[in-house]
Structures are given as C-alpha cells and as structure tokens.
C-alpha cells in the first residue's frame, strides 16, 4: 500500500508519521506543499505541526497551498485522506471536514496522553480494530472542536463523529474532555468516511519505548483494511 505525507513549512510530525507508516508496511513518500501533483497513493496524510507558523488561523494558509487542490480532488473522488492535529485543522479549512478547531477552552497548550473511544467502525479507518478505546497522545493549543448546531446535527445523523475523548473505561463526560470540544469530539469524518481528521497522534504511540502502543493497533488495522 502506498501512502504520501504532505510537508508544509512548519510541519513537525511529518517524519514521525513517515516512520510510523513505514513501520507497519506502507511504502511512503514525502510530498512538498508546493508540488502540484500527488504521487499514486492509497492514503494521503496531512501531518501535525504548525504549518505556515499558524498565521491567520491554524491551517488556513496550508488549506490554500498548491498541493491542496490535488488533495481535495483525491478526497472528492473517494481517496483516503487523514489529517492529524494540524492536519485536522487544515482539513476543516479546506472545507473537506465541517467545523473548526478553536483555542482550547482553558487557554493552555495541552500535551498529554488521553483515551479516545472509536465511535464509528463502519469505515476503512477503524473497521475490525481490536480495541475500541485507544490511548493516544495529544499536543495542541487549538483542539477545541466547534461547529454550528445544524452542522452538529448533520454529522451526528450521518454518523460522522469518528472518536470522542473518554476515560480508560470509555466513559464520555466533561471531566475527560481535555480541550472543551463540543460533544468531546476528538475526530470526525466527511460524509463518505474516506476523510478523517483527528487531534490525537497515533504516530506517537508505535513503540513500547514510547508511552504506549495503541497507535500500532491503529496503523496495523488501517493497512489491513486498505489491502
């Protein structure tokens, strides 16, 4: 399976993502933001970081970069596009995903492990996943997912909530909401479920020497689903 990771000026999780994808068997290529064409890929990843210094709004300038029109075309034709952290912010700015990531409600940059509950596994990202609750890492200042009431109704009706923050037993409440996200949302899909945006970083949990290996479960499963 072939994957591509887009590098923007200010991306800083691009190489971690590259390492993770390769570790679990993807043939990965790095793609520069100023390129026009995407290499043939089964999965496009927009990595975490601070693309263009978070100027204007997080992800807004990357959302208009040269490569993005190819990413949008790829996604609209059903291609798998995953954005993690800043990648999620970029996807909302392109309009591929609804809503926006606002500043964390407590105004702090949050850097810690959290638990997320997979809300919908009828898609290529989470189908057959061994665990329903994953421990992953978050590191962000703008992760407070927000959307209008109409948009929320539409994403709920269409089962587009991918994952929600919870405790280790899967309990979803305010206490386990790190950033103030509406309905504890940690990640969402587009309508067709081929585009996924999420704040937690699976690429940071892929080795026993890191603080956990739940990211390994995610990537192994993803590769199997794409085969």
């Amino acid at each position, binding site marked *: 399976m072939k994957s591509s990771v887009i590098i923007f000026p200010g991306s800083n999780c691009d190489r971690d993502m590259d390492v993770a994808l390769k570790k679990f068997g993807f043939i990965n290529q790095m793609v520069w933001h100023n390129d026009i064409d995407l290499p043939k890929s089964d999965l496009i990843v927009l990595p975490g970081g601070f693309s*263009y*210094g978070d*100027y*204007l709004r997080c992800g807004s*300038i990357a959302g*208009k*970069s*040269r490569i993005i029109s190819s990413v949008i075309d790829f996604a609209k034709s059903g291609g798998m596009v995953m954005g993690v952290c800043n990648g999620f912010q970029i996807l909302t700015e392109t309009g591929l995903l609804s809503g926006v990531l606002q500043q964390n409600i407590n105004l702090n940059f949050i850097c810690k492990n959290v638990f997320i509950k997979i809300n919908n596994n009828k898609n290529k990202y989470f189908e057959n996943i061994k665990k329903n609750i994953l421990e992953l890492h978050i590191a962000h200042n703008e992760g407070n997912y927000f959307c209008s009431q109409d948009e929320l109704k539409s994403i709920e009706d269409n089962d587009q909530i991918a994952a929600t923050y919870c405790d280790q037993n899967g309990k979803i409440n305010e206490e386990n909401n790190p950033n103030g996200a509406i309905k504890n949302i940690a990640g969402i899909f587009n309508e067709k479920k081929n585009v996924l945006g999420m704040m937690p970083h699976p690429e940071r949990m892929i080795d026993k020497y890191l603080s956990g290996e739940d990211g390994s479960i995610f990537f192994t499963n993803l590769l199997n689903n794409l085969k």
Partner: protein
Amino acid sequence: MIVKVIITLKKGVLDPQGKAIQQTLIGMNFSSVKEVRQGKFFEIDINEKDETKAKSKVQEMCKKLLANLVIEDFKII
C-alpha cells in the same frame, strides 16, 4: 460605552504573517494584491458615559498593554 481600537504594525516593520497571507492570496489568483498588513481589532466595553474620558482611558490601555509602541501604532475609532 464601547470603544473600538485598531492596532497595526508601524510602517516599515516586517510583517511575516501579512506577507504569507499576501503570497497565499496571489496563489489564489488575486494577483493584484500588492501588500497585506495584519493588525488587531479590539472592542472594549467600558463603564464610562463620557466619550472623551472613555477614549482617554482606552488610550492609556493601548500605551500600557494593548500595543507595543516600539513596533505598533494604535487608532481609536
């Protein structure tokens, strides 16, 4: 009353953010954009009925906190 303030970078001070926005706009085919300077806008609701007094207080706030006068100008509107 509400007092509105615009804070902008002084002429000649490098604005990398404005520059990045300008380049993005040009990339989006707004090719006539010559320059973009980004600033900040504040609406301050102040418990003061006299306009002159309110504005003078906001002016003080600008000097003490809202603007860095080394690189920024402020305009009360």
